[in-house]
């Protein structure tokens, strides 16, 4: 049988043939000048990768809500970075430390009269004064008021006021942003790592491996997440890393694995998987080179939703005071509750609103980005 001779381009370089890689690491390409040049394989891959990212970005950037979410995430990232910088430069650690800082707004009062009738209704401050026998009418006493409302001037301004222990709210808010990002990242990466592996393996091998993994997923879906985490926080000393890992493992083996498995199943039956197997690719080669790359976009989507869930769960647990961490948004609300400001509403707004809105908006932002990515991956959702 005779094959047409391969098109020779350069007689001096007989191995240079169009379309056939000269070796594993490089390929020949037409250059702008019209000639041919050897291009390393990684550069070609990089260019293709950049091009697909570019297309995705173009689609994503059309989604105004998604872009808004991305902007919010960047804003939170700036907040997270700014805390250590501010602590190192402007803020005095003794005053602004999120856990141990203290600053009191001291007001001087002149004692007007002595209340002798024990049945007179008096406030807490007056009651404290009455218990102090050295204070007589006419004396000047200085009383620290906590929580103090926001101040924008003075030696140590507290732009969002202080809490009931005299700690700066803004500092707590910025400090907690970092741990929220950290937790979200740990949980989301763990989830996606496990779920992608479980989904791809279950879909590719099928049989008892699939059955076992999916029954395990059912079992985990059966467990109510919040109660289980409450029990676990009684068993272990819950730190951010541990909590992130636990949330990641539970959701990675549970619901997300089931969704990614069905996606992987759709890839497994494609003809290029058969081709790869016929060409002699091993099981793991097929899984890592063909199945997982095709499941990855969906995995990234679940990463975004995973961050939302993890932050919401962490905040709820620390709202109940079950985590062994110095400061989070949930702990800020928890301490407002413990000090009796839960129903203070707008009169002590700086205790409840910054922390509550921060959790809500960060979850909101990641959810919006996830939705935007969903529209990129799933063309049916796009506007007509």
């Amino acid at each position, binding site marked *: 049988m005779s094959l047409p001779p391969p098109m020779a381009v350069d007689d001096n370089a007989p191995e240079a043939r169009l379309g056939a890689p000269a070796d594993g690491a490089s390929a020949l390409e037409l250059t702008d000048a019209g000639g041919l040049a050897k291009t390393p394989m990684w550069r070609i891959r990089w260019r293709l990768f950049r091009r697909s990212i570019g297309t995705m970005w173009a689609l994503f950037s059309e989604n105004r*809500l998604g872009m808004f979410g991305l902007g919010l995430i960047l804003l939170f990232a700036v907040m997270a970075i700014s805390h250590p910088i501010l602590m190192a430069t402007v803020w005095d650690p003794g005053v602004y430390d999120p856990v141990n800082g203290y600053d009191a707004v001291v007001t001087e009062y002149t004692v007007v009269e002595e209340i002798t009738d024990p049945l007179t209704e008096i406030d807490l401050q007056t009651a404290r004064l009455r218990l102090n026998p050295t204070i007589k009418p006419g004396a000047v006493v200085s009383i620290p008021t906590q929580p103090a409302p926001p101040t924008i001037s003075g030696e140590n301004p507290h732009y969002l006021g202080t809490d009931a222990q005299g700690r700066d709210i803004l500092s707590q808010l910025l400090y907690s942003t970092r741990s929220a990002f950290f937790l979200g990242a740990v949980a989301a990466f763990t989830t996606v790592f496990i779920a992608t592996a479980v989904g791809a393996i279950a879909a590719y091998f099928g049989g008892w491996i699939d059955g076992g993994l999916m*029954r395990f997923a*059912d*079992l985990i*879906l*059966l*467990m*109510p*997440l*919040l*109660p*289980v985490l*409450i*029990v*676990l926080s*009684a*068993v272990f000393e819950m730190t951010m890393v541990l909590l992130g890992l636990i949330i990641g493992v539970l959701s990675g083996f549970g619901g997300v694995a089931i969704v990614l498995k069905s996606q992987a199943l759709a890839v497994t039956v494609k003809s290029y998987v058969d081709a790869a197997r016929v060409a002699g690719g091993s099981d793991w080669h097929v899984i890592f080179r063909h199945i997982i790359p095709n499941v990855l976009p969906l995995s990234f989507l679940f990463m975004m939703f995973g961050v*939302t869930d993890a932050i*919401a769960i962490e*905040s*709820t647990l620390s*709202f*109940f005071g079950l985590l062994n961490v110095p400061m989070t*948004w*949930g702990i800020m*609300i928890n301490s407002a509750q413990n000090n009796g400001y*839960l*129903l*203070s*509403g707008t009169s002590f707004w700086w205790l*409840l609103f910054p*922390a*509550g*809105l921060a*959790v*809500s908006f960060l*979850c*909101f932002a990641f*959810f*919006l980005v996830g*939705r935007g990515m969903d529209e990129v991956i799933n063309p*049916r*959702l796009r*506007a*007509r």
Partner: protein
Amino acid sequence: MFKFLLGRLVQMAILFVVFLSLVWLLLQAMPGDISDTLVGNPSIPLSVRLELRESLGLSQPLHIQYLTYITNFFRGELGVSFSRYPQDVSAILWTALPRTLVLFLSATLLAFWLGFKTGKLIAWGRGAGSEKGLIVTGIFLQTVFYPWFAIVMLWTFGFFFGWFPIGRFIDARLWQGSPFNANEIFGQMIVSVIIATVIYVIGRYLIKRYARDIVTQTRLGQGLAAICVGALVLFWWLHPAAVYVADIAHHTMLPVMTLGLVAFGATMLLTRSAMLETLGEDYILTARAKGLPDRVIRDHHAARNAMLPVTTSLVLALAFVIGGGIVTETIFSWPGMGLIFLQAINVSDIPLAVGALSITGVLALFGHLLADILYAVLDPRIRVA
């Protein structure tokens, strides 16, 4: 169908035993037991605490405790609560479960109904000005920090406007010296609502069977709904316990509203995306080509298929009764399963905690089964042979 159900039931039973054992072991792994919560009390010496451990069977080896628990569990004995000593776990759970279920079912059903209607309309009128606003509201409700949201709701409507009582299930001052038992009245309220619902469902079925066209069907359906609600209200209005019933209903409203708003956002978004997928199908185009009115296409061709994922999420929400209940019930001081579970965990009351979790497990298992069956009912394509 029968074989499928039987297989599923066997699978569910195995899964449940594994779940129960896992939960029991996890709770045993908690440091300390009930006697350790008495350490701080100087009038209780060590010998008494050891005696307490002995009498509760906590000093036995772990595997014997486990076997005793599991065998008793399947005999229907959930044991005695440690922290509320002479009370049976099943008795405690039996009073708490209806409260939680009512809270959840009414909130989810309300949210499902409203969310489905809204989601359907915004998917149909895609691009309308109100769409963006509703979507953003929906996403915000879905991602809002729930404990904070509940606090804000409680403050706004309970404290600032004063429309609703601040937490709790009943007003103790009103019920003091009342001839009625709150739990019995609550049970009767549930039964009356169930009867009214059954009558409504049967009536709807008859209307669908015998009424000629869709317009008559809709009108008759609305009339029937009004009659059922009216009869229910009238019955309790004339009932001797009317004041007390109104008190319970009044206490129920705010938690239901809070929980319902959050579920509303999620249902609306889910319906919208499901509707958008169905609207692209060929049979919608066919229905349009046939010249069917828009309303019929929207409600009977598109919405019925969009119902599938929404129904599943509704049924699966049952599994989260305790999980979601913990937050709602803590903030509204609602004495249901979630609050009882949290209290049981805090004092290492293992029988009560396992009992509460086992009920969640049963609910979740049957929720999954119900979801599968409903799926087959709603979508003939995946009906199991």
